[in-house]
């Protein structure tokens, strides 16, 4: 085992990690936003809307993420082509981002739904009694409390997502794992670079879950 070659390869590895983090950050923001909308639909009294949200969640939760990534990689350019009528080049990053957002939204939706349902019914009733509209009650009363409660779960899901971003390997996007693999092949030390990549993922995920646990204790009422 010769780990000395990792230092000279650092620039490429850092670029890969930045790609992974960029994908993670945008996917979390988009996934939570879409997931919150889905959760509100799911809890709506309109059977059509809640049925749609339920079907969406069940659909994405029963298929593998890798299938979604592969499919979107092939389908997103084609769909855009149909819609816009001209050829647009989308690239692996955008199609992966869309895939992660839509896939993770299904998981975030379930977390947000549980969070909203855990807020005492009296909060909502009191908001309406004060003359607030549905939008105001959700935005000012329910969601701020719900998000505080479910923050640890949302973060845990995001740590899983951080690990899952490595699946973009399937479509050749240069994320951290792919950068480590290709650097390792160039230098001729694939094992060392693979171990190094695994160690970096481990340190980040493990550190993050420890912080989440600490946060959970501090947030606990």
């Amino acid at each position: 085992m010769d780990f000395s070659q990792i230092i000279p390869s650092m620039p490429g590895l850092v670029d890969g990690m930045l790609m992974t983090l960029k994908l993670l950050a945008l996917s979390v923001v988009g996934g939570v936003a879409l997931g919150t909308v889905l959760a509100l639909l799911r809890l709506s009294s309109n059977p059509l809307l809640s049925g749609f949200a339920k079907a969406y969640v069940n659909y994405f939760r029963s298929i593998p993420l890798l299938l979604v990534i592969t499919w979107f990689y092939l389908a997103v350019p084609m769909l855009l082509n149909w819609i816009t009528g001209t050829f647009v080049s989308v690239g692996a990053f955008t199609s992966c981002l869309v895939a992660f957002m839509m896939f993770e939204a299904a998981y975030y939706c379930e977390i947000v739904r549980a969070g909203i349902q855990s807020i005492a019914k009296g909060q909502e009733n009191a908001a309406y009694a004060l003359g607030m509209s549905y939008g105001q009650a959700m935005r000012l009363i329910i969601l701020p409390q719900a998000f505080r409660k479910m923050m640890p779960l949302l973060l845990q899901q995001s740590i899983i997502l951080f690990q899952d971003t490595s699946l973009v390997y399937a479509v050749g996007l240069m994320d951290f794992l792919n950068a480590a693999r290709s650097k390792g092949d160039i230098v001729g030390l694939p094992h060392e670079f693979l171990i190094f990549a695994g160690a970096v993922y481990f340190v980040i995920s493990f550190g993050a879950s420890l912080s989440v646990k600490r946060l959970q204790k501090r947030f606990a009422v």
Partner: protein
Amino acid sequence: MNYNWDWNVFFKSTGIGSEIYLDWFVSGLGWTIAVALVAWIVALGVGSVLGVMRTLPNKLLSGVATAYVELFRNVPLLVQLFIWYFMVPDYLPESAQVWFKQELNPATSAYISVVVCLALFTAARVCEQVRTGIQALPKGQSAAALAVGFTLPQMYRHVLLPQAFRIIIPPLTSEFLNIFKNSSVASLIGLMELLAQTKQTAEFTANMFEAFTLATLIYFVLNMSLMTFMSWVEKKVRIPGMMGGAK
């Protein structure tokens, strides 16, 4: 752009012998099930042992199990798969290396790697469920077992585990479903399971929407049937008068 919808594509000849594209999906599903089921059996065994270890009074044993869980839960599945497939074989003894890399059919060596990888990956999750199940039991259960003179192994075998496993059937079900979904990573090391066959069909026929729709449908049906099966198991083993059995 013109896209030629053709739902009959699955019944067309692949040009290889008398195969039709549907045969590819059937064989892919077969590999997916073969990977997931074998890996699940191993994961259940290893995970249960680790789960018990985490609840033992012995600091060393519970420490080993804790370290295992943290290690396997915090490294991405794909990194683990690459380690098992590309790296570990290089450290086997000479004769085993020749056997694994040259004598074995490439599909078989990929299969072995995926099964080992998924089994050990899932074992960490099973371990956590088993531990939660055991710890969810009232303290009186283990105290009573020891008081009537059970040894530690007897206590686990006859008192704690039979109750713990019944409690954790729902979370175990979702791990069981996950192992089927996770088995799709096998496509990245060249095992022709369901996702790999889908990709191949999409490339051969240019009918990718049909191919991926069928794959989605297969995964969906597989999921639903496994879920139904597990809730049947849950009802079957339920002890009357215990745990939600208010009927």
